Every structure is written in structure tokens, then in C-alpha cells.
């Protein structure tokens, strides 16, 4: 008896191992009344037929399971998309918001860390029910209750103060651009990163982590833009960051503020279009979610992801390469620009234009497995890293299969995918190298005289 109790207790501690200060302290401040009133407010004021139809129409058939890499990796029925709805909104709607703080804790863990909002399951559900949308409603409720994982909440705070994801101060941003400009001048004399240039064809925007951790990407972009002789600009003032963790925490008011600033930065400079760095979630925010929240059916200015832009550079022969990239590559299709914008064929065009040896992962294109990092999951930080990597097991298998066919390099044109795949590659010992398209193009680019 006592022995089995110990086992059970162990099991219990095992499942409770993930402790997050943001969630834990958040639920400590909750009362059942507060929970009920916030839930009622969100459900009554902010949702409508869509949520109702999604929850009521689900036939509990389980076909969505094969759409979810969490389920495929962990083989636990609790991780199927519909199961995540069952553990969150079904229960909340059934009990009309009368749920406990403990329930909210579990719901927050599910919504924030066990769904990448990759929308793959919508392609496996015969009814096309959008579980990512339901999870976003759950996140909205948790956000309003102040129950958000600490790391991503901090990132959202950074957005609200600095208007970028990484607490980059106004001066640090400009300083970084000037520094990268100077560095890049070693590659190309008189290369410029033109700041605040009115009437430019391209307003180039990036995500906060680029100036903070991956400044070489700005350097590479500057070299490519200059090599292509583009009339381009970057803004010196806040509005340069296209990323958006507020979209993922559920802070839609802040998301609206961020997207408005980003659009208006480009439009005030009378830019023809926005070209964005190789980021997926930012694209989703600018192209799909943020514009709608502000009242625009489509973005008020053309928004072009790097893949589309690079593809155009090769199609219009605006840049030349010295030689093709030799090492065999495989390609990871990021959810937000493939299921989110259908850029998969353009990505393959770029691979074919730049790489000598291309090995497909399967499944691919719209059916590709998520990196497990998207949807803000990686931004929930170290407490959730192990769980995240475990849910990437299916992805690891996919990578191993590509490697067995000879692939050495994984091209992942998305920052979060990079973060997620890096952890997966390390954890499972896949031993493949990760690259952005920008890395590859920069490496083989023929610089004009």
C-alpha cells in the first residue's frame, strides 16, 4: 500500500514538475468569481458564432490527432487537438465559466505550451475546425486573468514599453544598424543601410532578436539589398520590429498598438511595400492577424516575406551567385508562411536556384511538421524546454530520414523554427546544420564590382 502510494506521489510530482512563476503566481491571485466574470466577458463580448460552431460541431472523431505533432510525438490522447479543446473551452462552456484556479492553470499550460497554433490540424479535421483559434480564445482568457508563462509575458511587456520583443532601446537599435552597416562596408564599399528614407521601394523590417542576438542577419540583408541595388530603407524609430508576442499572449490591444506602429512607420515613409526578414510568426501578425484586429481586411501596405522577396530577386535576375551551395540541403516549411501564405513553392525555387543538392523531407509543404517552437511556445522559456523538445520527436524522425538520404543542412526560413529545430537537433543528436536562406544566399552571392 505504502509502496504504491510512493509511486503515485512520484508520478504526481513528475507531472507537476513544470512550474512557471507567471502561471503559479497568477493563479494564486484568482478567485472563482474573478474567473467567472472574465470568462463571461471574453465569451460574451469577444467571441461569437465561430467559437460556438467550432465547439458544438466537433464530433469527437479524433481524426485531428494525426494532424498534431504533439500527439504524434507523445502518443498521448491528451495531446490531440480536440483533446486540448476538451480540456479547455468545452469544459469552460459546459460549466459556464465556473472553473477553479487549478483548472485555469492546466488550461494555461495547454493553451500556451502544448499548441503551436500551427493550424495543421485544421487540414485533418473533416470540418476544418480551427483549434488554433479556440486555443487563442483560451489564451485571451488566461491573459485577462493574469495567468501567462513568465518569459512570454515579459516579452509582451517589452513590446509594450520598447515596441520591440527584446527590450532593445531606441538608441541601441540605431547603433546596431550603424554597426552592421560599418561591418558590411568591409564586404561592399559605401554600402548603406539607409535610415528613414522617404519614398523607398522597400521598407525592411525585422524582429527584435535580430539586433539583439543575430545582428549578422541584418548585415547579410544589407549586403543582399545593396547587391540588388534596391531603393530600400529601415526606420530609425520604434516601428522597426515586426514581431508580436502580444498576439500569442492574448494581449490584443497591445498587438493592435504594435501593428499600427509598424504599418504607419512604413506608410509614413511612403514606402511601396514592407519586406520582412525570415520570420514566421511576425508574418502571421502583420499579414493576417494584426491587420484584421485594426479593421483592415488585408494589410494596408503590401507585405512581402523574405522568401517571396528572394524568389523575386532570382526570377528578375537582380542578384547573381558565384556558385551553387554544395552541401546537400533539406527544407523545413514553417507553418506561418506555408499554411499561412503558401510560400512553399517559392522556397523550393530558391533552393533550386542556390543549392546543388536538395533532399525533401516528408511530409512537406502544407503538411510539414511544426518545429514545436512556434505559436509563442519557445517564448515561454526554459521551464518548458524539455517538454517542447519531446513534442518535437516526430520532427526529429523527419530530420533523421532526410539525413539518411544525405542531407547535411536544414534550411529553416523562420526564427522560431530555428530556435526549435536547434533544440531538437541537439537533443536527439541529429547533427545537422541550420541555415536561413539569407545565410546561403550571402555565402554564394556574387558581389558587384
Amino acid at each position: 500500500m505504502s509502496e504504491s502510494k510512493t509511486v503515485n506521489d512520484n508520478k504526481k510530482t513528475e507531472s507537476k514538475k513544470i512550474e512557471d512563476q507567471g502561471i503559479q503566481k497568477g493563479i494564486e491571485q484568482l478567485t472563482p468569481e474573478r474567473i467567472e466574470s472574465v470568462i463571461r466577458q471574453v465569451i460574451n463580448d469577444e467571441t461569437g458564432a465561430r467559437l460556438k460552431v467550432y465547439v458544438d460541431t466537433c464530433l469527437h472523431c479524433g481524426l485531428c490527432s494525426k494532424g498534431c505533432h504533439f500527439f504524434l510525438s507523445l502518443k498521448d490522447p491528451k495531446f490531440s487537438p480536440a483533446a486540448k479543446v476538451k480540456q479547455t473551452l468545452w469544459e469552460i462552456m459546459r460549466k459556464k465559466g465556473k472553473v477553479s484556479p487549478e483548472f485555469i492553470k492546466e488550461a494555461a499550460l495547454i493553451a500556451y505550451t502544448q499548441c503551436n497554433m500551427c493550424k495543421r490540424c485544421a487540414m485533418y479535421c473533416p470540418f476544418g475546425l480551427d483549434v488554433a483559434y479556440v486555443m487563442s480564445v483560451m489564451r485571451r482568457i488566461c491573459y485577462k486573468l493574469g495567468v501567462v508563462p513568465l518569459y512570454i509575458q515579459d516579452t509582451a511587456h517589452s513590446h509594450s514599453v520598447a515596441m520591440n520583443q527584446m527590450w532593445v532601446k531606441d538608441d541601441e537599435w540605431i547603433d546596431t544598424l550603424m554597426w552592421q552597416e560599418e561591418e558590411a562596408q568591409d564586404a561592399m564599399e559605401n554600402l548603406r543601410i539607409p535610415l528613414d528614407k522617404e519614398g523607398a521601394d522597400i521598407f525592411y523590417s525585422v524582429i527584435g532578436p535580430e539586433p539583439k542576438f543575430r545582428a549578422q542577419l541584418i548585415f547579410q540583408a544589407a549586403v543582399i539589398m545593396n547587391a540588388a541595388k534596391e531603393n530600400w530603407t529601415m526606420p530609425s524609430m520604434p516601428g522597426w520590429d515586426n514581431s508580436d508576442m502580444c498576439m500569442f499572449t492574448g494581449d490584443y490591444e497591445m498587438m493592435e498598438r504594435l501593428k499600427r506602429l509598424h504599418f504607419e512607420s512604413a506608410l509614413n515613409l511612403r514606402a511601396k511595400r514592407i519586406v520582412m526578414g525570415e520570420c514566421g510568426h511576425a508574418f502571421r501578425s502583420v499579414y493576417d492577424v494584426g491587420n484584421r484586429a485594426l479593421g483592415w481586411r488585408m494589410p494596408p501596405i503590401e507585405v512581402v516575406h523574405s522568401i517571396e522577396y528572394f524568389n523575386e530577386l532570382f526570377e528578375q535576375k537582380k542578384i547573381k551567385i558565384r556558385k551553387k551551395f554544395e552541401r546537400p540541403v533539406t527544407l523545413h516549411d514553417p507553418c506561418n508562411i506555408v499554411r499561412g501564405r503558401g510560400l512553399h513553392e517559392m522556397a523550393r525555387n530558391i533552393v533550386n536556384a542556390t543549392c546543388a543538392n536538395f533532399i525533401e523531407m516528408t511530409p512537406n509543404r502544407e503538411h510539414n511538421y511544426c518545429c514545436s517552437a512556434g505559436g509563442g511556445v519557445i517564448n515561454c522559456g526554459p521551464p518548458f524546454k524539455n517538454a517542447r523538445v519531446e513534442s518535437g520527436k516526430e520532427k526529429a524522425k523527419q530530420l533523421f530520414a532526410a539525413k539518411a538520404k544525405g542531407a547535411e543542412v536544414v534550411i529553416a526560413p523562420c526564427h522560431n523554427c530555428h530556435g526549435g529545430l536547434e533544440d531538437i537537433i541537439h537533443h536527439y543528436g541529429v547533427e545537422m546544420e541550420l541555415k536561413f536562406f539569407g545565410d546561403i544566399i550571402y555565402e554564394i552571392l556574387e558581389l558587384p564590382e
Partner: protein
Amino acid sequence: MSDYEEWNWDIGKKQVADLSGWQEQFPYIEELRVSSDGERVAAIVKNEDMEFTVCIQSEGEELETWETGYDKAWNLQFGPDDRLSALVSDTSEWKVCTDGETWENGYDFLWNMTFNTNGVIAVSAQKELLYSVLNNDVPWENEFSRLTGMVISPDGQKTAAVVESVPVLESEIFKFRTGCYSVAVNGETWERNFMNVWNPVFSGDSNHVAASVRTSYYDYYIAVDGKIWDTVFSSVWEPRFAPLTITKAETKVSSDANNFTNAHNYSVTAPVKKGGKWFLAKDGEIFWDRPYFQLWHHLYSPDGSTIAAIVSTEFGRWTIASDNTPWELTFSDYVSDPIFSPDGKRVACLFKENGKWGVAVDGKAWDCQFDMVWQPIFSNNGLQLAVKIKKDGNYYIAINGSILDGKYEDMANPLFSPDNSSMLIRGRQGDSYNREVISLKGRI
């Protein structure tokens, strides 16, 4: 604009700068800037030592450069008084440089160079990771761990910015919730701290500052001089003070100057969100009672009697509302740059429809559409509206819906003469940067 009426308004075209000479002399030339009177053209260039400096040329004169070369120069601008300023760095020390003369105070970084209407310059500054503002070379006494959104008062005497009034570290999310941000005016913070503060703005008399704030994740307010409105909203956009004007009826009251100030300067309006829809609120009360999908960039007519705003009347449709009455004409993509005529009777804006830009006045769109349009400009009598436009890669002027002949490769916004009979065009044609005054008689 200094001595606007004294400028040379004689009809005719002259070359201000011969750019072929610039290209011969400098291996590196940045974007050209032109003074508002069109008499001088300048750009950041690299000199023979590959140092950054500024090159200037006036009509019939040799081109000249600032005496000193710098490690870096940026943000070159002609101020409203037509003095030429840039931010320059020498051995990692940044200074403001105006017409070749640098300020006394040096910093680790300077940015957001801002002018009042008379040309007083303020700039945000950082030294040893502490932040403050430098107004006309006078720094704030207090420094902060973070500073953004600096603005200068209309009289140029004050500056305000959003500051981190309580230093908070990354990942201190619970401390953050207690409120660590405020507005500092000339370095003095408001008494109260907020979770966030955005968009500080001065009143017309420079005595008050309003800003958007939130006190929790979902409680948004407008704060005026640190005091929040009585009403909470689910979101707000930037507030505006009613302009300082004395109408006939009010002149009597204004004999007591203080009363006048109190009665009028504090009137603040802002777009506010309630129940998922946007309204215009005034001093905490809903002022425009009609719900909009979106409402922003509201502005007062010069006499303060009318308010216009960009609104979205239904999802995906944009237009202008004047005193809460939206135009019937709506646009799909975007509406921007609303402006009142000087007499306050007309409103114009830019719009984008199906990817093409256009101009609309009082609910009617011009027939022609463009690849890009710049801020519309009313003539002083309000009868004419001019814009700089881009079409097929070239710049033109359009007035009241028709495009003028002159084609430019680069251009500044046009200006009407004081008597509205002619127009100043400043632009580049080939290697020549020209100043041209054209007669509008018979053209429009």
C-alpha cells in the same frame, strides 16, 4: 517657416545645385535635403579622407562642406527656421551640429532630433546607459534607465518623454504590473507611475501634457498632467488638446487669463475603445457617440470648432468623419494624412484603394490615382489643394485633381505663395536641383 512672405516669389526657374559637381567631388552622397525656401541643398557626404561631413550648395555658389569631418553623421535636416542640423559623432561622442557648429554637450548616443515650429532643437540622449533629453544644448537634470517618445513643446521651452521612473529588470513581471513608467517633463516625472505610457503630447500653450496610459493589462486611460480620466476604457489612442483659440464669444471671458487657461487648455480628446468599438471621448466622456470599427488621427480645425478623424465605418472600409459624420465615400485599403483648410471649412485626406493612391476632399475623390502621394497642402485661401505624387518612377505636382507638367526625379513638398497665385517647387531634374516658382494663373 522663416520670412515666408519675404522669399523670392518671382516666377521662374533657377538651378540651386549642380549635382554633377557633387558626384565628381564625393564618392559617397546620401539623400538630398532642401531648405524650405528652396535656396539651399545639402546632403551627408564622405570627404576625401572618407570622413562624414555635410555638403551644401546655393544658387550660383560653389559647393561647400562643413569644416569638420566626422566618424559618422546622420539625421540631416533643415529645421523650420532653415538652419541645417545633423547628429554627428567624433571618437564615439555624439553631438548636435547646426550649420557646422557643434553643441557643447556630448553623449554616447543621440537620436530623435525634434524641432518646435520656430526651429528650437531637442534630442534624446544616452550617456553611460542613462537617458535624458537635451533641449537647445541644455540637458535635463535627471536621468532615467529608459526613455522614449520625446516631444518638444510648441514654445520650445519644454520637452517631455516617456521614462522608466522605477527601474525594472527584464523578467520582473510582477514589479512591472505595479507600474514603473511615467512621463517626465523637463526631467521632472509625474507623481504617478503607470504600467505603460505612450504618446505624450503638449497643449498649445505648452503648459500641459497628456498621454495614453494603462494601469493594468486591460485598464486604459488618458492621463493629463499625471491625473487619469475618471473613465476606464479597454484601449485608447493618442490624445489631443483642443487648440488655443479665442473665438468672439469667448473673448469676453478671456479678460481673466487664468480662467481662460483653465476653461480651455485642459480640454483633451482621444479615441477610446469600449465594448469592442471605437468612439471619440472628451475629458473622459464619450463625445462622439457613434461606434466605429476604428477611429484615429483625429485633428482639430485651426479654430478648434471642428474635429475630424480617420474612421472605419464597417470592417475593411475607411473614410473621414467630420464632427462625427462620416463621408459616404469609403476606401478599402487605407486613409491617411487628414488636413483642414486654413479656414477650417474643408477637409482633405489621402487614400489607397486597390493598391493605388488618391486624394479626397470633402467626401469627393479626385479622378486620377497615383503610385504614391505625399501630405496634401491647402492654399492659404483653402481653394486649392496640392500634393506631391509619384507616377511611373517620377515625381509631379498635382493640384485640384490635375497633374502639372513638370517631371522630377526627386522632389520636396510644394508650397503655395502667400497670395496663392504661385507655387514653389523644389526638385531634381537630371543633375540639376532646381528652385522653380510657377504661376498658378490659368492652370487651375
